[in-house]
């Protein structure tokens, strides 16, 4: 385990039980499209609006490729991801509400953990708060002093 993996595990505690990486690891072996299903879920539950599909897909690509998620997950992940993704029509973005009552206990736990994880990522938080991307030098030093619009 790399040190950065460890840090995320310790600090973003939701990662500890998110059954995601194992499923991603299995994708190629089984020849299924779990990655596609997971990407569809992230886009549906994420904050991006209709006109930002390209941006959302670019994010999903990095989300799936993030090696620090590998190794945390359980074999049942594939089925959970698929069944949850199938609840949303293709192309769904920025779902307003998730009806937890219609989900199985496992689906519910998975969906909540995925949301907690997703909205803990700095890039998502910055997007929501309309902040320029992390690490980009603004130069404009008084921006933070102004009242939010």
């Amino acid at each position: 385990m790399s040190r950065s993996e460890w840090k995320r595990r310790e600090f973003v505690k939701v990662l500890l039980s998110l059954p995601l990486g194992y499923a991603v690891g299995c994708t190629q072996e089984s020849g299924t499209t779990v990655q596609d299903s997971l990407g569809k879920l992230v886009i549906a539950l994420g904050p991006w609006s209709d006109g930002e599909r390209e941006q959302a897909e670019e994010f999903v690509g990095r989300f799936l490729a993030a090696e620090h998620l590998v190794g945390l997950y359980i074999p049942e992940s594939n089925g959970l991801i698929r069944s949850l993704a199938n609840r949303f029509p293709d192309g769904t973005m920025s779902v307003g509400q998730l009806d937890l009552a219609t989900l199985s206990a496992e689906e519910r736990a998975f969906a909540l953990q995925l949301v907690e994880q997703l909205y803990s990522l700095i890039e998502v938080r910055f997007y929501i708060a309309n902040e320029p991307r992390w690490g980009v030098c603004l130069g404009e030093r008084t921006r933070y002093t102004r009242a939010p619009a």
Partner: protein
Amino acid sequence: MTEEIRADYCIAGAGPAGLVLAAKLAVTGKQIVLLDQGPRYSEADRAAALRRGVGTLNDYADYNDDASDATVTPHSSAEPEGQVVDWRAQRQFGVGGTALHFEGIMGRPRADDLNVKSLYGYGRDWPIGYGELEPWLLRAEQEVGVSGNDDNPYVSPRSGQFPMTGHAFSYFDREVFGPALTRLGITGHSCARAVPTEPYRGRSECLACRACKFCPSGARYSPDRVHLPLIDGRENVTILPGLSIRQFETDPTGATVVAAHAVRTADATPVVIGAEQFVVALGGVETPRLLMLSELGNMGGQLGRRFSDHVHPYVTFDLGHHAGSRLGFETMSTDHFREHVDRRQENTFWMLGSPAMDWFPIGVEAARWSTREDALSLDALRESIPRMVTLSGMVELEGNGVIELDPDTLDAFGSPVAKVTMALSDRDRRAPRRMGDAAKEIAEAMGVEHASAITPPESGLGYHPSGATAMADSPDDGVCDRDLKVFGLSNLYAASSSVFPHLAANPPTLTIIALALRLAAHLEGRLAA
């Protein structure tokens, strides 16, 4: 074959203490060897680490992420009452040390922080008073370029101004945090930072990149960016990254160190460094460990004792309206709870507030607070993120921890690692709860309707290890004398937070650098004058 090097000064550790010391001693023309177990990071390495963080959506990416145990020495921890101390996330090995990634907060100790034992009956007194330390704190501020304003009513007297004005208060600090503090009779003041508000000695002013760990603009002080260039390429200075010091060798009397035995981390080839003077500047854990491995510095049985750290409690809540933007760090803090506390009974703490959006993984709270019965409102969750606020603090501890060698866990070269045992007293345990109570009052003063929904204070240890080779007037009370010379040895010195007899609620880096400057003056023979 063993490589042999000879110098006037051998400085083990190229963190802020070691690099500042080397830079000051270099101008004397003396031969200096400066070694560090970690690598030397280039600007390209910094940029790559930031890109890696962005690419993998991991804002906790850091310099040592891919380092092996040969570069980052592990340590073990006892688990008394669940207080596991783990520095894997915070430790930094490399030229620049922990100041490679620090936040640049440059708080000072108060005068009474140096006399807690005699004034309040806990901890240990420093052998030097505030009057003696203060000029060095001022020089340290000038050395690293600290921005701040003379607006802190709780600080002990200063003998000079900050080198530059502080950062303008953020919207949150000016309109939310500060007014709430005022309603409670508390003063919010500027938060001194080693982040310039104007160009300073070749560094840019802060450009608001909001990735301070890597500071793409080069504004924030980092020893490898400021003090390393002062010695790089000098004929009389040899810089040796990737060299792990294993132990010191003394002459037959045991009173003088004659050599430092080291190995190259790449291939374990041995290197022996002979010098007239030796300085251990390996930080709060490895400094005492090296003395233990060398069986030196324990005349009075104090080596490794009274180890301390800070507890960092934090709470999160929904402000109810947008909390504003952030420069990348807080612009206001308060030392109120360092002064208005009955120190005979309670520990002090320092406090600041901030929009949580850009530095806390608040998805957990946001999701839970947006879940009602059988529905998760993602709309509500998204709206809540910019409203969320974190109040956090730095709590002093009594200093009852212990560092010892762990014979059951060996480092990459076969030596026992340091085992950390934190022992928290009742007052240590009360302090984070008290900060949580204060945070709740401040939240209510901000107009937060549901302050009861504030998260219970969570806290962590492991950022500021200190005290295990404390300076003292006698070996019965510490490991080194007031000039940082290890008791019983004629030519071995220590320079790090490990020499603090007591760690107050302020971050330690400014004091570390102040003591390094003072040690340089002592070694040059200037201190007495």
